[in-house]
């Protein structure tokens, strides 16, 4: 409850306490702390990335979720790695989703192209994940990416649309198929 109150306050001064709460091994506190960190947004990004260098696994998983929720491009490396490599499907799911909600306007223009290329490649790979919910999350992120690059990189948007066409044929999970249909509508 204390964590919930701190989160509600949205104070930057609460960041260290909220980050500490990610390591308590208490899911209720961690959920509230993640929400609080997402509300605080950008000021929480650097401390979160520092936390990711050497803390216990559980805390790392929550930190990835917070970074995904904030969408700051400084968290991109972490999200790319987690979406592909994390052993927990719920972390891969959250990271894949986060790759679709990166605030691209915050990235220096000279870095934009290479960052978006990496996200596209990673998401195409993650859309083959063996867990349906990770593939579902990848579809949501690819849909967002296609919209983000629709004007700047029409070829990438086309590539995503083609990918959806193929995936919907090979996909055996009805929920993922439905989500692709929804993405194709846009």
């Amino acid at each position, binding site marked *: 409850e204390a964590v919930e109150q701190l989160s509600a306050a949205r104070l930057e001064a609460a960041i260290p306490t909220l980050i500490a709460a990610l390591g308590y091994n208490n*899911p209720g506190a961690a959920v509230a702390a993640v929400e609080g960190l997402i509300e605080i947004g950008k000021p929480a990004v650097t401390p979160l990335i520092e936390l990711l260098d050497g803390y216990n696994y559980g805390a790392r998983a929550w930190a990835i979720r917070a970074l995904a929720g904030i969408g700051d491009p400084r968290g991109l490396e972490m999200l790319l790695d987690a979406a592909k490599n994390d*052993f*927990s*499907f*719920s972390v891969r*799911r*959250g990271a*894949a*989703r986060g790759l679709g909600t990166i605030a691209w306007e915050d990235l220096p223009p000279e870095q934009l192209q290479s960052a978006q290329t990496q996200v596209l490649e990673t998401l195409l790979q993650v859309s083959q994940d*063996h*867990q*349906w*919910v990770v593939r*579902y*999350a990848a579809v*949501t992120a690819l849909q967002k990416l296609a919209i983000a690059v629709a004007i700047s990189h029409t070829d990438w948007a086309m590539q995503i649309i083609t990918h959806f066409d193929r995936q919907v044929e090979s996909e055996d999970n*009805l*929920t993922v198929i*439905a*989500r692709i*249909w*929804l993405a194709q*509508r846009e």
Partner: protein
Amino acid sequence: MSLDVFAPDESSSSESLTIGQAIANLQGEDLGLRMYAAWWLGRFRVREPVAVSLLIQALEDEADRTEEGGYPLRRNAARALGKLGDRQAVLPLIQSLDCSDFYVREAAAQSLEMLGDPVCIPNLISLLKAGLQGNHLVPNQPDFSQPYDAILEALGTLGATVAVPLISLFLDHPIERIQYAAARAMYQLTQDVIYGERLVQALAGKDLQLRRSALADLGAIGYLPAAEAIAQTLAENSIKLIALKGLLEHQIYMSPSNELSEGAVRVMTLMDGLL
């Protein structure tokens, strides 16, 4: 199927067993290996006739006993046979409903539900009647003597409308999980929203395990009006996503191909928010 979701990921060691070896282990001397082979054949859906017939034989195993008299090999064989989807297993599983081991009876009821053959309905009904005395639940409560939740769920899935009057009596069972199973079956058999709403109310319960159970039930019946309540339930997102997946797939089965209903879009919007 849903159990896989709780494991981080399947370790590769379990897959390193080959089909031939699993089948050999199932006929071997080592009781531990036999039990594991039975589980493994189900887990990896080994639909080979020899696997099916060995698992059916294993339902009558006498070698593997626990101190309390349970039959671990029979339990795993019964569970595996549901996953393999071969209807040859239906009659042997019906016989397993009379096994002295509660967990064998439970596994048999669940697997009969999965196999989907209504021929077992009378047997399930007579097992359900063990919990009844005339038009009432037996006076000795809580009554744990039969796997009522598995029986009720099977009757609902198998479309046993003839059992509706009996099933409705279990709505008042003192064990909440069994009440939910009865509500789930009643909804499937009558499509009356009163039973769906009963499960929605259960989402606000105090016990996490019971909330999870109600989430699974709502997903299984695909009760669309529960969508928002599911998304807001205090439980793991992974479990809520599976419940919503049940609602979504129900919507898709109901609508013409490639048409997304308004309900389907609503459910996906909620799912996106839980990723």
